[in-house]
């Protein structure tokens, strides 16, 4: 049913989440849906992977041990190499204030957990389209 996962042209999504099942669900689903996926379990790893791989989209959990998602986003958005990469904040914080904080840090959009993987895919595609429109 699904398309072959490994295609050279497939967009690369970096999934950042300190919770293993969180990483697994979205990574597995997106690979299933044809994306290339890399993962990171904390902020520093996220920065390393981002600078190394220069992904097309980053799914960023905000509550992370050590360097948190907000800080990681700020750094990525202030770096020439990574500042154009769309970052989708993925958070279990449902309050508007949390969303505002994420936007302020530089996130392009915010998705609240729990999140149906299909809805997340839609958002990823929307961001990719927006980015290709900008460039």
């Amino acid at each position, binding site marked *: 049913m699904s398309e072959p996962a490994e295609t050279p042209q497939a967009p690369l999504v970096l999934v950042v989440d300190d919770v293993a*099942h969180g990483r697994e*669900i*979205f990574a597995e*689903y997106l690979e299933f849906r044809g994306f290339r996926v890399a993962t990171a379990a904390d902020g520093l790893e996220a920065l390393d992977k981002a600078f190394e791989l220069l992904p097309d989209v980053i799914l960023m959990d905000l509550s992370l041990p050590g360097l948190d998602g907000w800080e990681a986003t700020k750094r990525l958005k202030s770096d020439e190499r990574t500042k154009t990469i769309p970052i989708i904040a993925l958070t*279990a914080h*449902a309050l508007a204030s949390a969303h505002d904080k994420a936007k302020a840090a530089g996130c392009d959009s915010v998705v609240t*957990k*729990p999140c149906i993987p299909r809805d997340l895919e839609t958002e990823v595609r929307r961001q990719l389209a927006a980015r290709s429109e900008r460039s």
Partner: protein
Amino acid sequence: MGSRARLALVDALLAEQEVRPCAVLTLRWLARHAGVERGLCAVVESETGRLVGLTGLGLSLASVDAFSLDLNDRMHPLVVALAASEPVGFPGSGAGSGAGSGLDTPLGSDSFHAVPLGGPSESGDIGPGLLLVDAVDSAAEEDIRWAAEVLGVRLQSLWFRRSQVDERRYKREQSWLFGIINAVTDPILLTDSEGRILVANAGAEMLLTADDQKSEGRRRAVALNNMLFSASIFTSSSGGGPTRHELLLVDPTEGQDLLFEVMSTPVKIRAGETGTVSVLRNVTDLRRATDEIEEQYRKLRFAEAETRAERDRLDLILNSALDPILVTDPSGNIVLMNPPAERMFTVAPGDRSAEAERRVRANDAVFTSFVSGLYASQSLRWRGELSLIEPRSGATVPVEAISGKVLSKHGEDTAVVTILHDLTEAVEKQRLYEQVKRHSEELREKVREATAELAEQNELLRRQAFQLEQASAAKSQFLANVSHELRTPLNAIIGYTHLLLEGVSGELSRPQTEKLGRLESNARHLLSVINDLLDLARIESGKMPVQLERVVLQELIHEVMTEVEALIDGTRLTVTRHISDEVPEIHTDRQKVKQIVLNLLSNALKFTPQGSVSIRLDYEPEKEWISVSVADTGIGISEENQKTIFEAFQQADSSYARRQGGTGLGLTICRRLASILDGQITLISRLGEGSTFTLVLPRQPRET
């Protein structure tokens, strides 16, 4: 004629010292011894150069005095006779011959003899006089000639002596006169008609004469004085009688002006010439004194006027003072009072009632006793409170009396001035003040108690509010945390379920798909419960942000209808819209209104098994209210349940609701949101017949 008779005449003449008696004695002797009946004795008056009658015998006194003959008339027979040495006979007019009859003598026209008196006269060739006797016989002629000789010698002797005496007396008297004149300090002058000074006393000389030894200044002053004096004499003497005028001269020694009063009297200085005697009185000091007196008098008049004005002012003050003012003498009698005092201490003319009299006397007694206290004391001031009676009304008048002693230069009491001040008002004010003060204190005490209580309550409330706030914050935080902690596992459940349903892990059997479907459905329900709870928590903690914007409700309803289209499709209900075109734009939070309308519409669709659902949009222009009504023909809500339907987790039919996927929080949230937007949600419903929920909103919230 006997020689004894002649001796007697000689003796008599020698005994006599005066001229006229000698002549009388001689004429009488001739009458007795020579038979002479009428005779006249005339003597030469050298001063006037005339022969005048001295005395007569048998003649009238007037005729003797009238006899006067100019000696210069040398051809006159009597003048000729005077110079003759022998008697000359003059025949009477009756004889018809001789010249005697033409002469005018006291002896008339009868014949007479003119016998010259003995001795030479002073004027030389003529004798001292003539003896005229009527005609006698020749026997007596010898006696007449002898008597004339003796009388002439005697008269000449007397005249000589007298002239010596007169000379001495004249000189003595002249010196006395000058002494007198000089003793008078006022300048006295005699001037002739030309204004030349004939006589001047020392005072006059000081002013009007100066010899060459005197200073130039003095000479000039004297010259000026002379000029001024002469001019004044000429102008004043024109009248003829005594005159009086003022003359300003210069003191030649001191140089200052001297004012004189000049009294001039014309006097005869010699025949045909009139001079002037002037007496000058120095009135410089007098004038100065007069001026000074006038000045003093003027000052006195002025001071008097001042004093009168001062007294008038004082009277005015006294009379215009509203408080009674009285002045008493040391005996305590009232000597002066102003009208207000008169009202208290005198009986009004119109009211002579015994009552009034008695009250006035009482007042007087009270006042006198008060004032006598001051006289008795050493102090100068005295203050007291008296109780007087208004004479007309009889009302008691409390007054404050302030008295002051008026002392003379010697420190004796001369008067006491007293001012009375009506205290009626003050006493009443004091009473009212005390009353107000008492009430005020009571009030203050009550306020203080109330305030203390209030403060206590406030403190309690504040503490409670603080606790509530803390509790609320804790609750919000708790809910947020719970939400987060629930979401994470729920995310795993929903995510994995989805992965399985999507076939990520391979194909599923039909029963597996069904069961996973239910799992997902329940997970979603759980998620909406969590979301609603979070909403409610935020509303209740006041942390729900409101974002106002212009909202076109027609558009909003259209959007909601689109969103519930899928839901409508799953029913067999008739859904209608009634949208008024009159509804204006409103100012509100679009997201929240949409949430409410969506909720109401969803509820209507969920709880209406059959029939219809309609949505209306209306506008009430007068109240500027917009209403969105959702009416259904559903199960309805009992009256009992209508009261609690808006409370959390209250669903009219729980089992039914659960079937429909409601959380039991929707209406609660809707009502709270409406309230945040200054609106409200009302409900009309009947069990089994349906419900109508209406959202009413203002065009603009009160606080923007």
